[in-house]
Each structure stands twice: as C-alpha cells, then as structure tokens.
C-alpha cells in the first residue's frame, strides 16, 4: 500500500500506476516473447539458472533498496562483498560455517561503518560510500595479497551456490527468505514504517520522535549483510573467492533496485518490486545471451532498458498538483 498508495476508491487507476504490476507485465512479456524466439528459454534447467543468478544480484539489490528507502545511497556494496568474502575466506580452513559467519559479520560491520560515517559525520552518503568503496576494495586485496582462495574442500560452502533443496536452488531459497523477512519488516513492523517515514521526510521523522540515525544505521547494516550474503552464492558457483569478486556489483544492484520501482529520493519502493526487478533483469540478460546478440549488445540493451523503465515509472506516477 505504502509503496504505490492504491486508493480504495480508484483501485483500477491504482493498479495501472503500480510499479510492481507494470514490472510484472514486462516480466511476463519478456518471458512469452522470449520463449517464442528462444525455445531453450522455457526449459526448467534454464529457468533455474536464471532464478539462481537473479537471487544473487537480487540479494545485493535488496540491500540497496533498504538504503535507497531511507533516502541515502550505497556505492560500496561491491567492495563490501569482496572484503567480507575474503575475510571469511581466511576461515575456510576452519570449515564452512565459521567462514560464512565471519563473512556475514564483516558485511554487517562494514555496513555499520558506512552508516556511522553518514549519520555521525553528516556527509553526503554518495561521497562516503564512494570513499569506503575504494578503501574496502583496497583492503580486500591486502587481506589476500591479491590471491584467490579455493573452495574445493568446503562442500557446505559450495552447496550454498549450487545445492538444491526440494528441487529449488539454495540461493533462491535464501533470496526469497531474506526478501520475505524484509518485506514483512517493512510492512508490518515499527522499524519498517519508520524507514519509509525517514526516507520521505527526515526532519519530520526526527521531530515525530524517530531516531533517524538509528534507522539509517539499520538500513546500512542490512545492505552490508545482504551484500555479504550474496558473495558466497557468487563465489561458490565458480569454486573460489577472489578479492575482486564484487567489482561493479554496486551499480547492478542499484540498477535492479531502481528497476524494481525504488525511488532515489527515498521513501518509495518495495522489496517485492526489487525481487521482480532482479528477475526481469536476469531473464532479459538470459534471453539476450541465448539469442546470441553478443556480450556487448547485451550491455547496450541493459542500459537502454534501465533508462526506458525509469522514464516509464516517472510518466505513470507524475504527481497531480
């Protein structure tokens, strides 16, 4: 409701103005048209692949969504992913669980560092995270001396990226779990409402007794955590952790969040939207790869879609003044 403010009275108009709905339509179209031209698209195996990849970028995107919702931005997602991966990687010797634990922990800590810088130093978040982005990236290399860490002997760790539970890839399960937990958090908890309010009007939120700093801190630590979670899913697919694993991930994450209808101004967007965004994003790339337009044309169309979709969103919810 909050996200798209359907008025009970003009529900019809509402649904058409609903980002999630539009995204859903797009998704359906890509699916249908795609599977007409590229038969292999509809195969179970392929769809599972799409889901798996969507879950990875989607996880990071959920974190980005959180930060965007409170009216800030996080450019350090990629570097957080790399750094938390390698710090965790140092522990694989002691088994997968400690490694994963350390990874998540690092992610949260780094997120908190961002949050503290943004809230306490009151610096523009784009700047802060631009800075931490390169700091974390540098540290990631220092930690492993630029080396890769192999995961061949960590079956549990690997199963994160490759395993199935009841025929569903593990990443998808993790993704959906996180997604559901967070969207419940956003819709049905105090913190959730406060996140939206903070994003929509920070000053008002503060005056209304919301501890906006705390809220932002929460958003950033969630972003850190999700980035850290996405890491192992990615690296376990290819059996190894590298200190540059997350390079460029932040931009895709933000792109997906925006694709999902999250506004950069804050206070607008849903996790569901982001999930759909991730699916659309990945499905489209998959269609392009399968239809063989070539890596570089994919990139072009990716950017093109991004621009078009934000324009469309802007057009549909132009505020009536």
């Amino acid at each position, binding site marked *: 409701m909050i996200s798209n403010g359907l008025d009970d009275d003009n529900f019809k108009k509402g649904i058409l103005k609903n980002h999630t709905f539009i995204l859903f339509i797009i998704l359906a179209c890509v699916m249908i048209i795609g599977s007409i031209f590229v038969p292999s698209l509809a195969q179970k195996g392929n769809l599972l692949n799409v889901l798996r990849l969507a879950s990875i970028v989607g996880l990071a995107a959920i974190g980005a969504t959180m930060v965007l919702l409170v009216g800030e*931005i996080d*450019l350090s997602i990629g570097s957080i992913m790399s750094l938390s991966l390698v710090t965790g990687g140092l522990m694989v010797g002691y088994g997968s669980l400690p490694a994963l634990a350390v990874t998540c922990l690092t992610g949260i800590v780094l997120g908190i560092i961002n949050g503290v*810088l943004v809230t306490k*130093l*009151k*610096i*523009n978040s*784009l*700047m*802060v995270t*631009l*800075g*931490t*982005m*390169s*700091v*974390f*990236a*540098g*540290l990631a*290399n*220092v930690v492993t001396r*630029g080396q890769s860490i192999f995961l061949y002997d960590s079956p549990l760790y690997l199963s994160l990226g490759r395993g199935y539970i009841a025929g569903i890839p593990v990443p998808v399960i993790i993704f959906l779990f996180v997604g559901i937990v967070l969207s419940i958090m956003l819709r049905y908890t105090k913190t959730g409402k406060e996140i939206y309010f903070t994003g929509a009007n920070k000053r008002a939120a503060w005056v209304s007794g919301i501890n906006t700093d705390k809220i932002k801190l929460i958003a950033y630590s969630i972003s850190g955590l999700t980035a850290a979670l996405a890491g192992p899913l990615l690296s376990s697919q290819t059996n190894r952790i590298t200190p540059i694993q997350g390079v460029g991930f932040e*931009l895709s994450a*933000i*792109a997906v969040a*925006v694709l999902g209808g999250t506004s*950069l*101004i804050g206070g607008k967007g849903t996790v569901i939207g982001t999930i759909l965004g991730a699916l659309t994003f990945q499905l489209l790339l998959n269609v392009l790869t399968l239809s063989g337009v*070539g*890596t*570089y*044309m*994919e*990139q*072009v*169309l*990716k*950017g*093109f*879609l*991004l*621009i078009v979709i*934000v*324009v469309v*969103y*802007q*057009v549909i919810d*132009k505020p009536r003044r």
Partner: protein
Amino acid sequence: MASESSSINGGFIVPAKFIKNNMLIIILLLELIMGVILSPVFLGNTNVQSILINTAIFGLLAVGQSLVMLVKEIDLSVGAMMAFSPIAAIALAKKILSASGTEIIMGSNYVVDGLFIIVVLVLLVSALIGMLNGIIIVKAKVPSLIVTLGMLYVLSGMSYILSGGYSLYLTNLKGAKSLGSSIFAGIPVNFILFLAVGVLVILVLKYTKVGNRIYSTGGNEKAAIYSGINTDFWKVMAFGISGLSAGIAALIYSSRLQSVETIQGSGYELISIAIAVIGGITLEGGRGKISGAIIASAILCIMLNILSLVGLIAWYKTIIIGLIIIGAASQHAFSRKTS
C-alpha cells in the same frame, strides 16, 4: 579541521578563515614539498610533464562533472564517453570518407588519415551524447544517476561493438603525435589547452550571465524558473559541456597513447566525481568553485605520482584515495556546519 577548532575559540578566527578558504592550495603546496623531499626526480621535466598531462585529462573530466554537479545533477557516463566518442568518431569518419574514396583505416587497425574530421566528430559526438543525457533527464524528469548509469552501459557496449574490440593505432596518423606530445616552454600543449578551457569556464561563470544561470538553477530551481530562467536548457547545457570535456579528455588521452582502445577511461567517472568533491563542489547543487576542482585534480594526480615514485603497491593507493575522498567530503560537511 583547523577551521573547526579555531572558529570555536574566537581568537584565531582570521588564520582559521584563511586556512579554510585556501585549504586546497595549502594541501597542494604541502604535496609539492612532500614530493620534492621524497623523490629527487619529482621536479624533473618528464615527471612534471606526465603529471601535467594526467592533470589535464582528469581536470577536464572534473570541470565537466563540476558543472553538472552545480546544476544539482550527476554524470556517470563521462568515463564511457572517453572510449565511445573517439571510436564512434572514427567509425563515422570512415563511413563518410570512404564515400569520397579515401580509406582512413589501413592494415585493419591503423588510422592513417582524416585527423581533422575525426577531431571535429569526437567533439560533436561527445557533446551530443552529453546533451542527450540532459534532454532525457529534464524532459522525462528522471534522476540523472540512473540515466547516466544506463548511458554508461550503452556507451561502453557500443564502444566494443563499433571497434570489434580492436584498439586502433594513431601512430601513422599525420599530426596526431604532435597533438599529443608537442610541448611549449616545457609545458605540454595539452595542459595549456586544459588550462585554457578551465580558465574560460571560470571566467564565463564569474563574469557573464551564464554563471548566475548555472548557480541559480542548482541553488534554487524554482527561484530561477520564477525569474524566467529556462533551467532545463541550462541543465542540458551542463551535460553537453560535461560530455564535450570528456571528448576533449579523450582526445588528450588518445593523442598521448596514440591509440584508441575500448576500455580507455573506464572507471574515470567516479574519479571525476571524487575530484569535484575534493575541490569543494557539493551534491546539494549551486555550491563550489570550478577553480577548486581544477586544483583538486592537480592534488590527486600529484598524489598518485608521488605514491608511484616511492613505489607503493596499488592496494594501498586505493585505500589512500578512498580516505582522501571521505576526508574531503567530511571537511566540507564541517565547514558548512560551522559557517
């Protein structure tokens, strides 16, 4: 931070103010001293020249970026533009000239002819794409971050498609070398070109209507509109100039390396933003001076140069750069609070 402490105890207001206002210059001087101490060759001709050329490349990007940030937008596409504009220009020039029978590309990837038209096309293409960014942003009223991010993807993809991944040699292109490496009174012409552009922009902003247009557009758009200023137009202009300066930067880059490659300038967009921030341009729009950005670009390049002279591993460089960005940003945050 000096400004901090002193503005609290009134005694040192004057020196504090002085430091605050000339922070960048002071840092620059400190760096120079540091450089001289740390490396005997720091002031050597070759070294100075390579610093100057880098400053020219990053400075140009930063100047463009600063203008965009002054109108309260941001441009992530400048990096990709540096690869795309020359590649597209050459592709177009090839099409155009082959019509008139002259082949400008030999041996599959040696550009041998058509320097002039290529240069013109580079400037044209970059300015146009920049303006296209602006037009989409103002007409559709969508956040520039996303539009230019999309453009970043589009352009870098296009660069590969257009060039087929080959990097092109300009070594056999008449005039390209002199464009790249001609030196006037010990100073690379490219740097002089950059200074000219920078000074021009500064003067235009200070002494013509344009300055007020830009600053008011970023500072309080509604006010600007109510005063009959076409803010959309000025935003488009800012993006156009940003694109154009990226184009010029691409020319300097390519003429220095006498080649055009698909990955040139990738990642420079973030550096240009960083420089603008260090130079005191804020994202709130309508604040900051171009001169700051220019000095900042020198600061950054000298810093990198010193670090490589003392032979520090790249890992630590990235960390240092990051810290500098955060430091600069927070410094401005504080000075804003105290003022």
